[in-house]
């Protein structure tokens, strides 16, 4: 149980900060993207920005499962709950994401829809088993970390012949989003990535080789603890200073080169690539999400209830799209902290704890715009 303290040791953080401070050259900028919302959260939660020199700029990435779902996908879930009267099970964060017509899943619930917050897909499965007269739909979101448990649940449902359980599958893929960001010529210029923690335990560090090899961008996979993040920044600065572009693994205590082969096999057995999936901010990306394979088609809620996806544009004032592409920061949004707050979110990035706007509002807004402007060169 000493695990946590070990990785939060303030003394070590100061040493790392000093090393970054002395090795980062004042004559250049280091534009580093932390892909994952978990890292965004850790950076804000521990005030790590205060420990970095002005030349090191952290840019928030799109790795927040709730943030990247476009409005039309939430609408789709709401239609299932309101029109098809299913019992819709979702992780808590999803419930508050603003959708069309001033609705959210939570507001649909207040209108009488049967929406349940669950902590895990197994809760939804159990609900289906206990209520055979109800159609139970699990709103499956998340990157590669949450895909294996969904796959297992679908396998179990099939094995036990469960007729009233299905999955609204919005699982998305990390490397596809990283490609999209690097391949946008008008997009943000990056010098390196902090690679995801939990996602990488599943997909393994080899998955990031193309970013180093083909794009010349260093990637350092890091755990979610604050010292992990500091260590990863130091490793990136060192790679950049020496002109290297490699995939390095700071999170060796959990991540292997190949990842979790068993989990990958299960996912592969249940899911196949979608041709295209629309992301908030990143647009429709080919091969960037998964759907159920034909042999599990019975468990696909989209097919079972015939609810199609209808794209809907974002709220005009909301900058979530640009924030998810790393092109803007929360404080660049005109309604940040005024019309849009965690209690009354306008965009998805203000909803989830992993969202950049929520993290900045919750932990960093004392800094105000002055400090923000000092970093404004990234746009």
């Amino acid at each position, binding site marked *: *149980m*000493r*695990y*946590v*303290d070990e990785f*939060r*040791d*303030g003394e070590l*953080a*100061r040493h790392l*900060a000093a090393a970054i401070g002395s090795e980062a050259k004042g004559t250049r900028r280091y534009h580093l993207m932390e892909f*994952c*919302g*978990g890292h965004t*959260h850790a950076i*804000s*939660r*521990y*005030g*790590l*920005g*205060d*420990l970095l020199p002005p030349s090191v700029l952290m840019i928030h990435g799109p*790795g*927040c*499962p*709730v943030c990247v779902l476009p409005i039309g996908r939430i609408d789709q879930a709401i239609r299932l709950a309101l029109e098809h009267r299913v019992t819709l099970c979702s*992780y*808590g*964060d999803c419930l*508050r994401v603003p959708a069309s017509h001033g609705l959210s899943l939570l507001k649909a619930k207040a209108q009488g829809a049967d929406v349940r917050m*669950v*902590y*895990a897909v*197994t*809760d939804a499965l*159990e609900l289906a088993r206990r209520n055979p007269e109800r159609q139970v739909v699990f709103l499956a*979101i*998340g*990157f590669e*970390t*949450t895909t294996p448990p969904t796959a297992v649940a679908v396998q179990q449902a099939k094995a036990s012949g469960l007729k009233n359980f299905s999955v609204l599958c919005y699982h998305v893929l990390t490397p596809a989003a990283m490609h999209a960001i690097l391949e946008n010529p008008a997009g943000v210029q990056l010098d390196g990535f902090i690679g*995801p923690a*939990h*996602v990488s335990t599943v997909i393994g560090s080899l998955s990031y080789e193309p970013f180093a090899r083909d794009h010349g961008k260093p990637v350092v996979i890091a755990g979610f603890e*604050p*010292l992990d993040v*500091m260590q990863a920044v130091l490793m990136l600065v060192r790679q950049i200073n020496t002109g290297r572009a490699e995939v390095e693994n700071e999170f060796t205590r959990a991540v292997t080169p190949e990842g979790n082969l068993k989990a990958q096999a299960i996912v592969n057995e249940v899911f196949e690539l979608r041709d295209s999936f629309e992301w908030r901010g990143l647009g429709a990306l080919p091969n960037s999400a998964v759907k159920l394979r034909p042999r599990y088609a019975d468990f696909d809620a989209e097919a079972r209830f015939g609810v199609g996806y209808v794209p809907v544009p974002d709220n005009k004032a909301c900058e979530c799209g640009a924030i998810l592409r790393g092109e803007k920061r929360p404080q660049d949004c005109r309604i940040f902290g005024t019309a849009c*707050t*965690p*209690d009354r979110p306008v965009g998805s990035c203000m909803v*989830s*704890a*992993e969202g950049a706007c929520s993290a900045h*509002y*919750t*932990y*960093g*807004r*004392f800094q105000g715009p002055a400090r923000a402007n000092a970093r404004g060169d990234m746009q």
Partner: protein
Amino acid sequence: MSIDLHHGRVEMNHGSGGRAMAQLIDELFARQFANDFLAQGNDGAMLPAPAGRLVMSTDSHVVSPLFFPGGNIGSLSVHGTVNDVAMMGARPLYLAASFILEEGFPLADLLRIVESMANAAVGAGVCIVTGDTKVVEKGKGDGVFITTTGVGVVRDGISLSGNQACPGDKVLLSGSIGEHGMAILSQREGLSFDSGVVSDSAPLNGLVEAMLDSGAQLRALRDPTRGGLATTLNELAKQSGVGMRLDEAAIPVRSAVSAACEFLGLDPCYIANEGKLVAICESRDADRLLAAMRGHPLGENAAIIGEVVDDRHGFVQMTTRMGGRRILDWLSGEPLPRIC
């Protein structure tokens, strides 16, 4: 024939005002809570009026699960109200207790709950002097809801209020945070894991007496229950129109709680406590107050965790253990485990 407290269940007529209800009251509540005031057997309790100012507070208790490591809804309903009265600097004297029972609830469980209420009342030195019981149909309640109301008397010269914090004052915390909420969370359906964390539910009136005895100039006391330490500090800052600066490294958190928080992606500052208090006191008296707190068993891990500052935004800011700064904000929604 007496009620079968071991195998019986709550029935609708236990709340209907008839003989069954009288029997339940006699054989369960009156027997467990036994005191002269209750023994009067009237619609209300006649109490001697103490000299000085009275404090009155009420709280409804709804907790799932009803039984958790370190207590149950019964002990919690006593501690909760005793502590609310004590946070006003008052000595709690009497409690009233109202029960809403769900039809079909096992009487053996009710007995356990009432027993632990009785024990908690003895432990806190208060009498449960009057009460009420209602029964709702099965499906219309969640087992047992308990509302307790407490009355206490304030010593002369003591006047605590959340609007009295001044820049320069010190912020003290009586012990490690997050234990009650984590004990409950670890038992929740769908999240069951063995954190080994036990609720800190306890009566704080003894600790408060010791703090008042120290003679330190106290401004306010608050118990950081729902919403945790962060919520309490934000309430105090707002009420007093000030900000706060905290030192995260000074806030005691047991390693089992921080590990469980880490696992779930939660922040212990937002997790409920039921046996901890926050004190705001004049700076020059802080050490004296700290010594008095540490001299009491429920304050042995007490710490000075920060100070009150001038801040027109009313921000509660914290220097993190890493040395960076952050806001310790109001909670928005329920604390939720992370998805990825």
